[in-house]
């Protein structure tokens, strides 16, 4: 401490050169990362936005003609696009709601100490570490209509075969289930870290008051977790809007487009229909959706933290 106050007293006016150095210093640290993202994300993004106003085809990526907002006009009246939009919103909402509920529940259950806790937590973390492609492969096999474990188990119970990935009534459900398996542990780990920062005195106080587990959770633990849960909800939403591998490898958007989320639609337009301009336009609209969610989140988050601090 004394060193600090001494320093303040002896502070000399800085020379012009050292002031310029001090001022540019933060940019030297942040600059390389910003430059990198500009080259590999922002410039391609700009090019993508530009492409969305052209009729560029895959066979001649440099040769598209500007066609104004035609791609967007076509999309907004296209049933296929609106189907993708609705599927994306439904898929994301289901992932966010169920991963938060199940993730928070498992974090709460594992937060107390018991024998075998480390092993339990490790086992619960497995899915989070499993690569998406491996997740898709094992679920493809488990969902297999004639020989997969799910239908084999149903057969034992005397229930007929279910087309987990082939039946339009089940496709989206099956994709959501596989995704939840993969992402819920992330919620658990983050909520668990937040739970461990709940002061022990708070629990003690409520125990003295004779409150039961559920009301302790609602009155004390949940408010403490809310800021964390809101951030996780945002991440889960925007990650769900852009999730590709699991859906692409499980159903490829089928059956009958019931799992055709926006990113799958982009990929199909670009590499199957070869319409790069149209694909870019869907991408821009998908990005807008994520942006709107993010803005809404920050507004809600600010209001909620204000309300909580009162």
């Amino acid at each position: 401490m004394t060193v600090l106050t001494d320093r303040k007293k002896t502070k000399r006016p800085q020379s012009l050169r050292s002031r310029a150095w001090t001022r540019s210093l933060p940019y030297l640290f942040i600059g390389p990362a910003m430059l990198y993202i500009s080259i590999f994300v922002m410039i391609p993004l700009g090019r993508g936005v530009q492409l969305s106003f052209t009729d560029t085809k895959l066979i001649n990526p440099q040769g598209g003609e500007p066609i104004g907002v035609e791609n967007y006009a076509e999309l907004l009246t296209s049933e296929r696009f609106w189907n993708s939009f609705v599927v994306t919103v439904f898929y994301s909402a289901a992932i966010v709601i169920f991963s938060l509920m199940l993730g928070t529940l498992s974090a709460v259950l594992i937060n107390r100490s018991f024998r075998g806790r480390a092993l339990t937590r490790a086992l619960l973390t497995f899915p989070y570490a499993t690569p998406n492609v491996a997740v898709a492969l094992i679920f493809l096999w488990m969902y297999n209509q004639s020989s997969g474990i799910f239908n084999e188990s149903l057969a034992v119970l005397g229930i007929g075969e279910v087309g987990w990935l082939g039946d339009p009534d089940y496709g989206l459900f099956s994709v959501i289930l596989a995704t939840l398996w993969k992402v819920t542990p992330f919620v658990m780990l983050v909520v668990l870290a937040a739970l461990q920062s709940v002061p022990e005195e708070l629990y003690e106080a409520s125990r003295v008051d004779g409150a039961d587990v559920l009301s302790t959770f609602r009155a004390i633990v949940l408010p403490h977790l809310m800021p964390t849960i809101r951030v996780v909800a945002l991440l889960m939403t925007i990650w769900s809007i852009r999730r590709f591998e699991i859906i692409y490898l499980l159903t490829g958007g089928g059956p009958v487009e019931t799992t055709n989320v926006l990113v799958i639609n982009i990929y199909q337009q670009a590499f199957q229909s070869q319409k790069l301009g149209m694909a870019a336009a869907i991408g821009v609209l998908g990005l807008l959706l994520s942006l709107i969610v993010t803005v809404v989140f920050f507004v809600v988050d600010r209001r909620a933290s204000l309300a909580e601090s009162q």
Partner: protein
Amino acid sequence: MKNIRKFAAILTSRLVLIGFVVVSAFPIYWMFNTSLALDSELFGTGQDFLPHLERAGDVPQKLEDVGIFGLLANSAFIATGVTVLSFILAVMAAYGLSRFKFHGKGISGFVLFSTQMMPEALLVVPLFALFATFGLLNSLTGLVLANTAFSMPVAVFIIKTAIDKIPYEIEESARVDGCSPAGQLGMIVVPLVLPSLAAAAVINFFDGWNEFLFANTFIRQQELWPASVGLAQFMGQYSTPLSTVMAAALLFTLPAIVFFLLVQRQIVSGLTAGAVKG
């Protein structure tokens, strides 16, 4: 009465937890089980619930035959490249964001965050064009460059959070002693945030290891496929036995599980270790 209720509550929570564990671990177990089954069992007589451990000896040869080791080597190359490149960029950026006030700080944070909502599928097309111009298609270096752009921001968030917790006074006193900003970062901050750096490195490594979309689109040459693309291709062609595909998938998965478990502990200790001692 109260004891009975307490007992019932504990019993319920245990049962629910056991249910969660079974659901989490079963698919991995089933991958393992399937890798030791014969196709005639899988698609005919039925898969046994217990693994045929006596067949484990055949697995290495089967993996060798489908060339999984070459695929994994490509994945490891991409993952290492992503980790190194994004580590350098992220440590500097995290330090800059944590320790300085400057014009454009808010926008820098937003730009980093925005990469998390960017659909890669949208960027695949313009990146494809960009890479074609610079000869980066069909190149593992190209994949390193593309993947780093999405992995590095996550590392920045993790490392910045860790640096935020270190009191500035330590660097301040080093500065007074004539330590340069780079020296403060390298000699004081970095050693204090090692657990978070390890966590960030593992997350970045497996981002590169797992990535599928860019690899599937940019790489046409089979020798350059990473394991993610190779495995997806195996599944499409019926010439590869399912047991071999599952054994390969397990080999692809295990390193990720082991390393995530390792850093998970380091993250927890990093959180609880407290900021400064003395």
